[in-house]
């Protein structure tokens, strides 16, 4: 078997047994990146020299019997909205194209402390706003299963990198489905942990009350291994839970007999693609055969999910992105051109503008020039919704609906252990197909956003293919902090199925 086909768990064993070196594994990944990256474009930066140096150090530690963790030497890729000290962290935005953080995100610190090899930074929709990675300002990423199609988003780079076998695992972030949706489109596993399970420190914020960092891998077992490493309390993140981290990888072999699976009625209504419906139905049968009992469940407020999500996320984003003003860091408009323009205007008879002052011009031009259309759209939406006179009708109303959505889940989880449904209404769409219609793009988040609004855990798993050969994703949802249950169900399913072993054929 080629090294690039090994899962994280297999690499762990091979490294422990001394069958492979971290350097070999890393080199194999780098070679594969060199071979396929031109057509996929998953990465914004590949740290070839750094990765090989880290791998060599890892081999040295292992040889000396001082491996930092079982995963010491396993390569991993990071979505480029996770701060890496001394390495550009761009959010795929012109605004941060030159931004080099002076610190590591907590998740990055933990990965380094465990000895993983940080291979590179992956592409995303600008500031994680989007569902296709087409809103990326610094790169274009394609779906390894069909290069005409999008990988999904916003963690499209991480999903494509794992699907293309250029790295065994990657870290993504999920605000409304940004891990699970691209995982489904690319035929891999994506876990959105419970809000507060993983520290957000150093994750460049999109919507603070919804953002969560999580692993993207080929198996549920690998997701468990990575979650064990990155989860846990963080004194630098006040919203991070103080709960200890269970050994998720040790509890994967649970018997599913008697597991109560709820099928979300609303996730099978109009708009669901037939191939997706069929694949999810067969997955349901697999779970039945594993001993699970199937129950009909309703989440009546889920139909307000998209509207609620886009209000809350945009409101928070409008504030989170205010810091990109061209003053302290990031992109600044051409100052000499601005000064020249101002001087010329002064020369003319026009009175100085009381509102559009030179400072406001600096802000406006810097932001207009460096933030993409989708980011600007959401900033405007959020600014509008938070404005005096609209706050009650939009933001407060959205918070009320958010509570209703959360209580829908509370009620459902009173009756069942996990919820099951499709991850997305349809498989990966073609590049450019939905760019002119943001609303239809937003609807791809229909089944995923409610988990973020409720703060619960969600897992996307490959569960089949369309006739055209596009992967279909199954979504399992668990109550808060029940990742162990979620991952075990995913693992048992993957033991019964082989969807995750399919490899896209790349030229």
């Amino acid at each position, binding site marked *: 078997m080629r090294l690039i086909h090994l899962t994280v768990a297999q690499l762990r064993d091979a490294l422990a047994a001394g069958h492979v070196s971290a350097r070999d594994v890393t080199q194999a990944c780098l070679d594969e990146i060199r071979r396929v990256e031109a057509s996929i474009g998953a990465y914004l930066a590949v740290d070839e020299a750094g990765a090989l140096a880290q791998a060599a150090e890892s081999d040295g530690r292992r040889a000396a019997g001082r491996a930092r963790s079982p995963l010491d030497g396993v390569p991993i890729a990071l979505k480029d*909205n*996770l*701060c890496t000290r001394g390495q550009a*962290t761009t*959010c795929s935005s012109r605004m*941060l194209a030159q*931004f080099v*953080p*002076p*610190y590591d*995100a907590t998740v990055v610190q933990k990965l380094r402390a465990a000895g993983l090899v940080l291979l590179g930074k992956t592409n995303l929709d600008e500031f994680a706003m989007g569902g296709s990675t087409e809103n990326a300002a610094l790169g274009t990423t394609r779906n390894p299963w069909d290069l005409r199609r999008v990988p999904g988003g916003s963690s499209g780079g991480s999903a494509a990198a794992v699907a293309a076998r250029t790295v065994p695992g990657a870290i993504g972030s999920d605000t409304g489905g940004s891990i699970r949706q691209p995982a489904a489109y690319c035929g891999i596993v994506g876990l959105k942990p419970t809000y507060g399970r993983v520290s*957000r*420190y*150093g*994750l*460049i*914020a999109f*919507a*603070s*009350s919804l953002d969560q960092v999580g692993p993207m891998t080929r198996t549920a077992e690998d997701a468990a291994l990575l979650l064990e490493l990155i989860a846990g309390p963080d*004194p*630098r*993140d*006040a*919203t991070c839970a103080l709960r200890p981290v269970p050994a998720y990888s040790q509890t994967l072999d649970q018997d599913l007999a008697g597991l109560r699976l709820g099928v979300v009625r609303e996730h099978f209504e109009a708009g669901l693609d037939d191939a997706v419906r069929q694949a999810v139905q067969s997955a349901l049968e697999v779970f039945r055969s594993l001993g699970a009992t199937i129950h009909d469940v309703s989440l009546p407020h889920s139909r307000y999910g998209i509207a609620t999500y886009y209000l809350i996320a945009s*409101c*928070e984003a*409008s*504030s989170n*992105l*205010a*810091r990109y*003003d061209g*003053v*302290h*860091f990031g992109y600044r408009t051409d100052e000499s051109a601005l000064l020249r323009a101002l001087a010329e205007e002064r020369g003319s008879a026009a009175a100085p503008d*009381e509102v559009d002052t030179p*400072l*406001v011009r600096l*802000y406006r031009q810097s932001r207009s020039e460096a933030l993409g259309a989708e980011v600007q759209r959401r900033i405007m939406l959020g*600014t509008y919704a*938070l*404005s*005096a006179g609209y*706050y009650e009708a939009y*933001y407060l109303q959205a918070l009320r609906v958010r509570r209703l959505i959360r209580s829908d889940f509370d009620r459902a989880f009173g009756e069942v252990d996990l919820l099951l449904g499709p991850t997305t209404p349809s498989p990966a769409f073609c590049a450019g197909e939905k760019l002119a219609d943001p609303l239809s793009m937003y609807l791809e988040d229909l089944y995923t956003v409610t988990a973020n609004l409720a703060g619960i855990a969600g897992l996307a798993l490959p569960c089949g293919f369309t006739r055209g050969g596009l992967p279909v994703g199954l979504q399992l949802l668990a109550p808060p902090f029940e990742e162990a249950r979620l991952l075990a169900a995913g693992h048992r399913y993957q033991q019964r199925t082989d969807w995750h072993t399919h490899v896209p054929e790349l030229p």
Partner: protein
Amino acid sequence: MSAAAFTTVIGLEVHVQLKTRTKLFCRCSTQFGAPPNTQTCEVCLGLPGSLPVMNRRAVELALRAAVALHCDIPTLTKWDRKNYYYPDLPKGYQISQYDLPLSRDGYLDLPDPQGAGTPRRVRILRAHLEEDAGKSMHDEVAGHADSRIDLNRAGTPLLEIVTQPDLRSPTEARFFLNELKLLLSYLDVSDCNMQEGSLRVDANVNLHLDTPRGRVATPIVEIKNMNSFRAVERALAYEAQRQGDEWRTTGRTLGEVPKQTRGWDDQAQVTRGQRHKEESSDYRYFPEPDLVPVTVRPEEVAAVRAALTALPATRRAQLVAHHGLDPYDADVLVNQGPALVDYFEQTVACGADARRASNWLQQDVLRTLNERGLTIQQLPVPAAGLAELLRSVAAGELETTRARQVFQRMVETGATVAAARQALGIVQVASEDLLELCRTLLAEHPHIVRDVRGGKTQALGALIGKARQRNPNVDPARVKAICSELIAAADTP
């Protein structure tokens, strides 16, 4: 329009920096005066990805102030974002408190300076926590305007105290600020130093006029940029005058024009209209999603209340009731801060007369502290030492002039009373020696004796001076008494 009777209506917004060692949401130092931008980190610089973590100490200090201001303290308080753009605000929002402030509905009583009548009660609308912004410095050198930003101050905890519009004159506003500053320094929650910016005041003011048409109010004006309490008083007085003039010219009343912001120009002693930045802004407050709400348990509030040391009002009352000081003297001592009042009480406890101790503190001790730039804690003379000195004065062993010399010696060398007296050669003159000296002086100056007999008793003063030349330790009062006696005795046949 004719002159009308009017009332000046004033409300204040006071920002005080809390005395925490580190900032409100990061571990950076709050020390004043460090080189620009040296006390910063990714959090207070607002770098992408950074998150705030609350400093509980700031909540404790704020609670102490809120309890002392008799505020209601809800069990749940939360953080909100106040969104606005300014170069000294690196995140583009300030973390503050909007609809669930830490405390609300309190009051502060202002003492009547005459010590009579009931105190003036000024209601506190709310007191909440927020982070400070950085400092913008605008250099205009050689025609080239340059703005520099120092973010050392960004993220320093502030307590914003907002009063109801209960103040009725500029002087009363200054009294309020003095009393508030005193209270906060007794609580040890803030340095309240306006020069260093640890206390800042904005004022809202308008006039209520009695006119033939009934009561009308002028538009409310917010005044900023006042850098001392005296400036607050002057700016308010100027503004009251200006609003009266404007009303007489335009007749415009509250509601007819938007609230205006004016800046105080201390050089020109006028307020000037500022750009309409404030009134047009909509801060788009919403709950801060990076922080969790803060719970304040009732037991915690009770503990803060129990731990409150005696506050200015209490200590004034104690000085009057327990030590017989008059209200004016009590006020002067209390205004010097708790340490000085403690020193006074210790001095009295060591046997000094309260009035004498009060006088000495207000004169010799305060003068010494001012001249030497010392705090009372740094004064080399302990309260027991001062008490011993004052007892000697009371016992007639030392006259006041000599006692002052002894005190100065004690300050300079840290000596005890006895050692200082010895060093100055101050010994009590024996009665026989003093009698002998007086006899000699009278014999040597018959013209003085003649003058005194002739009714010019002030001539004795010359004798006192000569006595002190011969022996600096003599007590002038006793010299005078003995000489008078001797002259009188010689008169009687």
